[in-house]
């Protein structure tokens, strides 16, 4: 296990080498967060109740969604490593590439989390949003458990998307990754709670994996689900996780056979 703790340490260290880039990346996502935040502030200017949401609950939702995103999403460069042939470095060593990246993600996420709380403190001071905490301990537990599951779902989904680079190595698989990122930004519920969509469309989202990456975990915080719905959400997440896991393993197994180990 110590090999992965060393990976964690180096990943952490290199983020400090890149501290300027890291801060810029945080600023970029902070700006898109602020855009969403002020949009909702404007919507609630003259009403206190929109789509069954109070001003306080919707503003809490967008802040909580940002917290979920910080822990769920990551910046996985495996596609570039496949295209450039840098994957070779890991394939010849007694190290698991999946675990390697998982560890690097953990390092990145811990740092992002620290940044999140600094940003949150500033937002609380300057904007004074009407945030509230869950009323029950069970809400906290469901919230945190669903984030862990969502993080695993996205980890494998991301590996799967990047695995297409084995077959389409041009541009390091960037176009497909970009498309998926754009889709996710819209479909996961980071900008708005998915249940404000028309009921038929929302029904679809219950089957699709996207909402489970942000909306459903954040929903636990707001105590939106109870009883059988909680079970259904966790079951759906497990099923999607199993699907992503299976196809990731399959894609890597097949991909490594067509892998050209390029790069001169």
């Amino acid at each position: 296990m110590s090999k992965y703790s060393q990976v964690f340490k180096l990943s952490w260290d290199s983020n400090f080498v890149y501290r300027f880039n890291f801060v810029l990346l945080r600023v970029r996502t902070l700006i898109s967060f602020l855009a969403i935040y002020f949009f909702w502030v404007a919507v609630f200017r003259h009403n206190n109740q929109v789509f069954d949401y109070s001003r306080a609950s919707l503003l809490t939702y967008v802040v909580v969604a940002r917290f979920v995103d910080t822990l769920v999403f990551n910046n996985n460069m495996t596609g570039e490593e496949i295209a450039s042939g840098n994957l070779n470095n890991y394939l010849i060593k007694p190290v698991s590439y999946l675990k390697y990246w998982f560890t690097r993600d953990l390092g990145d996420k811990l740092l992002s989390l620290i940044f999140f709380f600094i940003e949150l403190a500033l937002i609380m001071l300057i904007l004074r949003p009407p945030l509230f905490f869950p009323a029950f301990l069970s809400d906290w537990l469901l919230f945190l458990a669903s984030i862990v599951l969502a993080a695993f779902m996205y980890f494998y989904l991301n590996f799967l998307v990047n695995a297409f680079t084995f077959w389409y190595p041009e541009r390091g698989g960037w176009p497909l990754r970009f498309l998926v990122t754009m889709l996710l930004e819209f479909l996961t519920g980071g900008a708005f709670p998915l249940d404000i969509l028309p009921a038929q469309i929302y029904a679809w989202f219950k089957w699709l994996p996207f909402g489970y990456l942000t909306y459903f975990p954040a929903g636990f915080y707001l105590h939106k689900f109870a009883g059988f719905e909680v079970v259904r959400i966790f079951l759906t997440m497990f099923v999607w996780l199993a699907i992503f896991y299976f196809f990731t393993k399959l894609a890597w197994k097949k991909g490594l056979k067509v892998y050209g180990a390029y790069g001169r």
Partner: protein
Amino acid sequence: MSLISVSNLKKYYQVYQKEPGLAGSIRSLFKRKYDTVKAVNDISFTINEGELVGFIGPNGAGKTTTLKVLSGLLYPTSGNVSVLGYTPFDRKPAFQKQFALVMGQKNQLWWDLPALDSFILNKEIYEIPEDQFQRTLKELVTMLDLNDVLKVQVRKLSLGQRMKAELVAALLHSPKVLFLDEPTIGLDVVMQKKIRDFIKGYNQKFKATIILTSHYMDDVKELCDRVIIIDHGKIFFDGKLDQIIKKYADHKILEVVFADPVVKKDFAVIAAAKIKSFEPPKVSFTVKRQYANQVAAKLLTSLNVADLNITEASIEDIIREVFTGRDLS
């Protein structure tokens, strides 16, 4: 016993062909034409423990592909490969702990961190005990004279320093088998020599089995008793380096410096010799081995010669001729 054995190895790639121009691009959106590239086409060889073997061949000959198959990076199209008793593509940790691959044009070191950090990571990855790690590191760093730069960011190292650091990173786990792909590429002659001496020393000291590819004949001449020449994915020659001369060099080189001005017509008397270069007063000829003395005697009697030298064709020349497809036999 043979440590590495390769039999009838083939590695074919599917390469997609795009016609040039916009029309070609649009056509390729709908229908892609694929070509099969036979990077390695049915090669067999065995290598014994402690051997230092040179792979030579022009660009695209299949040298690197072979090394990648031996390292388990590429899945062979067909054939059998065994290294240290393992099938490389299974990528068993027990196998991976016993070999290393160094590519002169690739780096494994973390670009933004000091080399020492990457070394410590490798220590953990290869599960090297602390005392062994310290001992090996000290030994390698001394051999390569690298002490001063261990704590400098890798991106700030010179190419030569980086190559040395790459070698250290690859050798920390004391691999029994070492694949070196162009380890001296882009380095100046002094640094080339240092790396070369290091490889030789490493081979002798640790009885490591080494396969080396290089474009620099000096690397191969100095390091390798045995060479395998690959061209177009096939083994062209496998044996001792000096046998290449015996096998392929059926001619000698006559280097002559004339005392009087000469023109090409003057050489009509020595029909058996072909002019290799004509830079009066220096002229060199290639002559079939058996006529060399005869031609030299004739030159000395019929023309005013200041200096005359008979030499063997150089290995570079022979190999160049082999690769450009000239008939030497």
